[in-house]
């Protein structure tokens, strides 16, 4: 620790701290443009000049590390003169167009010029004209005239994200920030440069000219697009969400968002949004729809007795809404058949659930079936952050495709999804023969043939056991992995953390509300529907046809149920089976708790009114309660927050029984030429977005580059004909080097109907006629 004096106040900070950070601890504001704690020092803007005693000239506070006994002055004549000079230079070619600049009112150049700058500039020469409102891509605009060349954006994209898509071009006063080869930036994280830019140079295209700091409201909320649940700020104006910004949480989160989250906030205003109540395919009033549904429920209960109505939670509802549904089902509808919609079979007990802290401390990270860049992008950034500080980070991928990438280099073990658990079990058996439970685990798979050599399997097992801090990301595809992970955690004495990346986004919240989120639960509920034990289905955000891995079961259950009621934001694929479609309020329109993949509770605020007839869950259940003549839904006795636990859910209760053997995977049909694999991809999570349309592609499925060449698919993708057991469908495919040959990757939970019709894929062929896009 080092002691120094800043403006007469003593402060003790760790070695290596920069003067600006030490000053911030004392609450002394040193103006800064280029320095950002996540990106490190650079010293490009010269704004942070401070005076250090015994140094002949002013020094930059962001690049000077503190030393023992240092005496720093951030005020006084010399410093003020220095800052005035720097600002006068920065403003020489600045267009001073604050009235038309979107950053006006929240711009550091304005603020510092007002506070420290000269009253007027002495430069008489004409200003240099550069590109105004040029594109970085379809979502981010650049105004090169306003740029102060702090290079935050360039460093973020290059060093932090690792995708060098922005650069400085030209020399001297002609220097501008632009994209590589003037091609649009394609990274998932380009939107963050808007938040990073201290001036009005990088602007959000959808927010362009939409608001001003004084006519907007900011609501702290949680991004609803993937289980990461990034803390964010929703900007609203006149009951419309017009922007989403990252919300940094001190010591925990830098406030990065991926482009999907940052620009995908508009699903509530999309043309597809359901705003009317539909009963038997006819639009009706909200009151009539509520009455009809209540009547059906009463009728079903009267005819078939308690327990004849099944409730399935899906979508992006809050934990409080899940609790209301659960309570309504139990108290009013007299049914305990409540389940959570699942699209994979895995379940992770809370005791094994790690936090993001485990990523920032990990020395070994294992991706089990999931590529975080696509499924949970901000986790990828968190790992990049770790990699910057700890270059020995060991990254291992286990799954049916390559899961590591250039920005997250590591070793891939290519095993089919169904073999993942076997691979882990065998690896553990090879590395720790006598470990508790290990022999039981591999009992039935000892001689199972894996496509990985025995030496590699043992090396992988050794890597798992030797890791100082092991973090695993798991996509939940292989349910037997839960067993393996529990045994692994038991074997290791050092920290072991698992982060589940599967959905629905708030499944932990639904679990907190008392609904069992296991796949078995929803499967059992639908089996009961298929056998006629349950006569009515209430799907609260759940889309069975789209999400359930067992499509046949979904269709049979939907067809068998007397009544299917579905509360949705956008039309589900279940549409043909639905008797009543209820418009429901969603994220941004209802305040409530979300629990993310690390088991952290955060509040999503309500900022806008739901459109049309869309009502919050509370309104529906309260109205039904009234129609059932039961007082219901008006008291708030349940709170997911537990003051003893803080904002993390309880990890207690790991009463994991004796280890169970990993079941032997069924043999694959060797005659099938193609293997279909699924993966999570935030861009295809079922929520439509008009803003993100330029980023969306019709070619969502992927094949290996070799297969793509064989099928004649161009650089940006193309259509192929897929001949399946059920007929021929046309699918959009692109090449992806992460996919292995003879494998077709499709996004899980895709809105595309064809994704559900690929069972028994025989072959892919080049179509004779290419449909026009």
């Amino acid at each position, binding site marked *: 620790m080092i002691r120094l004096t800043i403006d007469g106040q003593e402060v003790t900070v760790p070695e290596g701290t920069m003067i600006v950070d030490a000053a911030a601890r004392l609450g002394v504001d040193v103006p800064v443009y280029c320095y950002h704690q996540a990106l490190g020092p650079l010293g490009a803007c010269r704004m942070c000049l401070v005076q250090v005693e015994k140094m002949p000239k002013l020094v930059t506070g962001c690049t000077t590390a503190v030393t023992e006994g240092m005496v720093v002055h951030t005020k006084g004549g010399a410093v003020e003169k220095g800052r005035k000079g720097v600002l006068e230079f920065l403003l020489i070619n600045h267009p001073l*167009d*604050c*009235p*038309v600049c979107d950053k*006006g*009112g929240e711009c550091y150049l304005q603020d510092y010029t007002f506070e420290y700058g000269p009253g007027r500039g002495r430069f008489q020469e004409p200003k240099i004209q550069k590109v105004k*409102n040029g594109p970085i891509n379809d979502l981010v605009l650049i105004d090169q005239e306003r740029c102060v060349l702090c290079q935050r954006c360039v460093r973020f994209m290059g060093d932090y994200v690792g995708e060098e898509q922005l650069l400085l071009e030209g020399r001297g006063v002609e220097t501008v920030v632009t994209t590589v080869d003037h091609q649009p930036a394609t990274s998932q994280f380009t939107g963050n440069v808007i938040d990073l830019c201290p001036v009005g140079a990088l602007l959000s295209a959808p927010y*362009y*000219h*939409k608001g*001003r700091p*004084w*006519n907007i409201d900011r609501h702290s909320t949680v991004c609803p697009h993937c289980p990461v649940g990034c803390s964010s700020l929703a900007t609203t104006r006149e009951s419309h969400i017009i922007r989403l910004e990252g919300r940094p949480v001190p010591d925990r989160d830098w406030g990065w968002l991926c482009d999907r989250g940052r620009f995908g906030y508009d699903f509530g205003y999309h043309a597809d949004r359901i705003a009317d109540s539909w009963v038997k395919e006819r639009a009706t009033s909200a009151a009539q729809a509520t009455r009809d549904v209540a009547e059906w429920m009463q009728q079903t209960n009267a005819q078939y007795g308690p327990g004849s109505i099944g409730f399935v939670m899906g979508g992006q509802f809050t934990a409080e809404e899940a609790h209301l549904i659960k309570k309504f089902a139990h108290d009013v509808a007299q049914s305990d058949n409540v389940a959570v919609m699942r699209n994979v079979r895995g379940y992770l007990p809370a005791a094994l659930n790690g936090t993001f802290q485990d990523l920032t401390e990990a020395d070994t990270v294992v991706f089990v079936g999931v590529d975080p860049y696509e499924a949970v992008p901000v986790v990828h950034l968190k790992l990049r952050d770790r990699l910057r500080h700890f270059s020995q980070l060991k990254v291992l991928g286990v799954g049916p495709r390559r899961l590591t990438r250039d920005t997250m280099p590591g070793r891939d073990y290519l095993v089919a999804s169904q073999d993942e658990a076997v691979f882990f079990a065998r690896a553990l058996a090879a590395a720790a023969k006598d470990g508790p439970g290990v022999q039981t685990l591999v009992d039935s798979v000892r001689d199972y043939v894996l496509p990985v050599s025995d030496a590699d399997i043992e090396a992988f097992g050794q890597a798992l056991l030797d890791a100082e801090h092991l973090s695993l990301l798991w996509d939940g595809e292989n349910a037997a992995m839960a067993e393996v992970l529990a045994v692994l955690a038991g074997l290791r004495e050092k920290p072991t953390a698992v982060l589940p990346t599967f959905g629905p986004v708030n499944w932990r919240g639904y679990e907190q509300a008392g609904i069992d989120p296991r796949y078995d639960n929803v499967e059992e509920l639908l089996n009961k529907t298929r056998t006629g034990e349950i006569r009515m289905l209430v799907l609260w955000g759940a889309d069975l046809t789209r999400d359930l891995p067992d499509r046949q079961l979904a269709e049979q259950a939907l067809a068998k149920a007397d009544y299917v009621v579905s509360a949705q934001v956008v039309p589900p694929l279940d549409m043909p089976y639905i008797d009543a479609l209820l418009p429901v309020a969603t994220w941004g329109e209802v305040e409530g708790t979300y629990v993310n993949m690390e088991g952290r509770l955060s509040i999503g605020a309500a900022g806008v009114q739901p459109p049309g007839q869309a009502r919050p869950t509370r309104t529906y259940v309260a109205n039904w309660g009234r129609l059932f003549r039961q007082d219901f839904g008006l008291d708030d006795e349940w709170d997911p927050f537990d003051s003893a636990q803080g904002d993390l859910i309880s990890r207690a209760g790991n009463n994991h029984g004796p280890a169970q053997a990993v079941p032997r995977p069924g043999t694959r049909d060797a005659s099938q030429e193609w293997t279909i694999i699924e993966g999570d991809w935030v861009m295809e999570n079922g929520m439509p977005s008009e803003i993100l349309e330029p980023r969306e592609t019709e070619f969502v499925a992927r094949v290996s580059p070799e297969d793509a060449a064989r099928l004649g698919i161009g650089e940006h993708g193309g259509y192929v004909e897929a001949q399946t057991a059920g007929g021929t469908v046309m699918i959009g495919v692109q090449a992806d080097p992460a996919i292995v040959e003879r494998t077709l990757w499709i996004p899980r939970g895709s809105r595309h109907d064809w994704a559900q019709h690929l069972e028994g894929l025989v072959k892919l062929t080049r179509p004779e006629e290419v449909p026009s896009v």
Partner: protein
Amino acid sequence: MFEGIKAMAQGLGSTFHALGQPRDTIEYPEKRREYSPRFRGKHMLAKDGDGHELCVGCGLCEAVCPAHAIRVVAAEAEDGKAVSWTNRYAVDYEVDMIRCIFCGMCEEACPTNAVRLTPFNELAASDRLEMIADKEELLHPPVRK
């Protein structure tokens, strides 16, 4: 009694004296008073010599308005269809004449000198909504008869 007659004569005296004096009453609306050119009445939005609006929709008037009487919604002009002198312009510009206290701060805050308070002060309507002046109304300031 003499005192009374005297007082009455005095009173009538000033009445007859005033009869000959020029009158302060203005026979509104046939006749109207002269106002100072600096009188702060209803707002107007000015245009430049080329017919482009001066207002760029920056919203500073909205920010400074102590009565929250102004609402500005800006937008980007389509290429070749410039509304203002730059690519940003005000799609909506509303002044709530009921709320307005005619302090003139909007005029003072305006960086482009687009908002001006005219001497026009004949603000009356039979409907509250009519008292909200929209952009069209403000672009065509009324002339006093």
